[in-house]
Each structure stands twice: as C-alpha cells, then as structure tokens.
C-alpha cells in the first residue's frame, strides 16, 4: 500500500453563494514539510484553509480532503470539531484576536483542553508558553489579551494552536498584522516548530519572499486554481507560468535574483 501524505487535497471546489472560490484544487503536502500557498487577494488561497476547517457561508461543492489518508471533508460536525486542535492546529488571519478579549487566558485554554477531553493542568499551558519563548510565562494565564503586545498575543495564539501537539499546522497570513522585526521572529518560531516537533505546515501568504524563506514547496494560486507547484527554488528560478513571473517581478529582491 502506498504511504499517505500528511494532507492530500483532490479536486476541491467550494463557493460563497454564487461565487466560485475554488475551482478544483489538488495538492499534496508530504509529512514534515512546509508548503506555502501564494497568490493575490481573491485568488482563493485563504479559502483553501477555510474549506479544510469548515467556515460558515462557504459551501464545499466537491472534491476530497484526506488527512493522513483519512477522508475529512465529509465528516460529521462533531467529529470534525475534535479534529481541529487535536490533529490540525490553525492560526487564523488575526491570531491576536482569537481569544475572548475580556477574559483571562487561563480559562480559555482550559475550555480548549476540556473540549478535547484533556484535564487542564496549568503547568502544561505555562510550559507551552515557555516553548514559544514567552517571558513571564506563569503570569500569562492570569492576563487578558489587551494586557499583552501584538507579538506576544501572536505567540500565545501559536501556543494555543500547538497545545495538543497537532501533526498539521494551517496558518492564514499569520504575519500580515505584524511589523517586520516581529514577523521575522514569528517565522523563525514556525521553522523551529517544524524542525523540533516535525509538524507539517501549510502557510497561506501573499508574500512570495516570505514563502521562499520558509517553504519546501510553493503552490501558486490564481482564480481558484493552483496554476504552478514546485520547490521554492524551482518556482523562483524557473517559473513556467506568466502569472508567476509577474509575481516574482513584483518582489524587488527576488527580481534581482531571478
């Protein structure tokens, strides 16, 4: 029997009401690798993640999503909920806002753990903060989101996504709200997670330069389709599609290298 990839997407189509957002997306993400989906806004790149995780208003019309060889696109709601957090960690577009702004972090982590049938141990949570390089980690469960900086909130969100050690991490433009310095630190964090824990990462970004820094493979998306796919070097140095070439031209540093 053939070995499964971590994530296999086959001919996935999805739409918002009458708008066809995904027109047949096929992707393979090998275990332990980092894949970046790159495209302009409206290309459907974020929709790929939303179609995997389930999003109100988005209808998946066809295709299959396999997680570790297991079909998940047609899973019942309750089962799918367990999947999120346990086997798939997700970092949304605005990670800093992914916690209830007026409650302290502790109970919010507790709710996440109890939802997955795991007893809440404060030490576990603090340890997950320490792993993310957060200072004063044992203070954080008693703090509220607005008491932390944007970058710290970001790390807490990554800690939450990685809390139950999922094997797959989906990130939707996780750095777009951050300044350049913080961006670099967060990217390093992702690379470290990938290296130390062997987590497979799918990252959606509009930033080809960033993708090149982090990705093993890059998929270029345009109008709801993957138009080109390859290793980072292949995409940057020998792009086949005119659209990809244009994307490369738009990033000054890459233009010079190409």
């Amino acid at each position, binding site marked *: 029997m053939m070995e499964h990839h971590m994530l296999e997407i086959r001919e996935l189509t999805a739409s*918002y*009401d*009458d*708008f066809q957002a995904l027109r047949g997306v096929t992707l393979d993400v090998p275990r332990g690798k980092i894949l970046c989906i790159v495209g302009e806004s409206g290309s459907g790149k974020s929709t790929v993640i939303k179609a995997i995780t389930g999003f109100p208003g988005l209808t998946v019309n066809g295709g299959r999503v396999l997680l570790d060889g297991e079909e998940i696109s047609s899973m019942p709601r309750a089962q799918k909920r367990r999947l999120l957090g346990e086997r798939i960690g997700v970092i949304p577009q605005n990670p800093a806002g992914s916690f209830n702004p007026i409650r302290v972090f502790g109970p919010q982590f507790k709710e996440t753990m109890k939802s997955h049938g795991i007893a809440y141990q404060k030490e576990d949570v603090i340890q997950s903060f320490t792993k993310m390089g957060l200072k004063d980690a044992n203070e954080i469960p008693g703090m509220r989101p607005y008491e932390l900086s944007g970058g710290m909130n970001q790390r807490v969100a990554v800690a939450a996504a990685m809390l139950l050690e999922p094997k797959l991490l989906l990130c939707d433009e996780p750095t777009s709200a951050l300044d350049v310095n913080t961006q670099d630190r967060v990217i390093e964090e992702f690379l470290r997670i990938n290296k130390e824990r062997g987590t497979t990462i799918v990252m959606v970004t509009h930033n080809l330069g960033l993708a090149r820094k982090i990705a093993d493979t890059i998929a270029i998306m345009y109008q709801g389709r993957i138009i080109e796919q390859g290793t980072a070097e292949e995409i940057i140095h020998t792009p086949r599609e005119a659209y990809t070439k244009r994307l490369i031209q738009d990033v000054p540093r890459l233009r010079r290298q190409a």
Partner: protein
Amino acid sequence: MKTRSKKTRRQLLIRIGIAAAIAMLLIVVVVFAGAFAPNDPYQTNAAFIRKPPCAEYPLGTDNLGRCVLSRVIYGGRTTIAATFFLVAVSFVIGTVIGILCGLFGGIVDRFLMRIADVTLAFPQMVIALAVAGILGGGLGGALIALGITMWVSFARLARSHTLSIKNEPYIQTALLAGKSTGYIVLRHILPNTMAPILTNALTQIGMTMIGISGLSFLGLGVVPPTAEWGSMINEARAYIQIAPWAVLAPAVATIITIIVFNYLGDAVMDYRDL
C-alpha cells in the same frame, strides 16, 4: 457576493410590496368607511343588544346595539387618521427644525438640540400620560401629549443629514452661483434627506398607534361615543364575558394594523441598510 445582495434585495422588495399593499388596503377601507361599513356605527338598536355575529351584524353588536364591524371600520379611521396626522405634523416640524439647525448652526442650533436632549432624558409615555391627564382627555390632548417628544427623532435625523451634505461641492457651487438658501434647501437638501426621514416616519407609525389607542383605552384620548379601537376595547371589556366579539374585533384590527405597519417599517429599514 454581489449576486447575493441582489437576491435579498429582490426578496425585500417583494416583502415591502406585500406589506405596502395590505397597508394601502387598510387605508382605503377606513377612508371609504361609508362604502365598507354595513351599518351606521352610531345607530343604537335596543332590540339587538350584545348580539353575536349574524347576517345583519357580521361581527355582532355592542351593549348599545351598535354594529361592531361598522364601528371597527370607522374606529380605524379615527386611529389611523390621528396617527398619520401626528406623524405628519412631527415630520414637518422636526424636519424644518432639523434642517434649519443643520444649515445655520450657532446658538439657535445649540439651544434646540439641548431641548431635544432634555426631551429624550425623560420617559415619553409618562410625560404623555400626565399631559393628557391634566389636559383632561380628548383627542387633541392626546396628540399634544404624544407630539411633545415625537419631533425630536425627525429633527435629529434631518440635522445630521443636512450637516453631512452641507459641505458637498454641489451645494458650495450653488452657493457660489448665488442661489438663495430657500432654493438650495428645496433643490438639494430636502431631496437628499427625505429617504431616511421618511423611513423614520414609517417606523414611528406603529409606535404612535400603540400610543394613541393606549391613551384612548385609558380614557385620555378619543372620548366615547366616537369610535376608536382603544376606547372601544375599554368600553367593551366590562361585558367581555357576555359579548367577547365586541372586544376581540377591535383588538384583532389593532393587532393586524400595527403588525402591518411595523413590518413595512422594518422591511424598508432592512432595504435601506443593504
């Protein structure tokens, strides 16, 4: 995304159309009450006191032998006419005040807006009740009592919309061209502020109707024998055990009318929010 709003837009227009049609029907029935009422609403009949619905009196008679259906139709005329009158007067007064305040600003604006704030700081119906009570009943008293606070929402809306378009280039152009203030108000400001203010008027209808019939029910509005839904219900509730139709008929009429106008107001508001 675009197609979606188009779809809901069409649905909303259908909803508005249906509600408006029913509202028009109600208005036509009460305006031409004479043509629709089977009997004289004030004609008492000693032989037919508190009789259940029959061919001659489709909704029965009250304790003076008057035709309940005819009284409901004529009563609707009182309630609906009083409501429209009050909303229209508040509309005109409020809009004029609002536009003038927005246009000229200054001390008059500050004074009037402060009055508006103060008016809203007090419980409307409590004030209305006291004013109507002290004025000693009668429709006029009830209208004044309710009108004291009603102009405010119109004035505020008109003022804010006037302020927001006052500095638009086309108005500045008109000013430079030497057009008079009156011309600018009629030609530019009124047409541009009408839609939100009319919507507000529409949403006020249901509330006003509840207010008028409520005051009449308490004996502080329309005084018997004039037919009016609230006062009819109040009169007839004394013998509700014997002749429930005399209460239920005006009650159902009130409920339907308020629901239709509220529905229309909501639908128009939703449409404008789209």
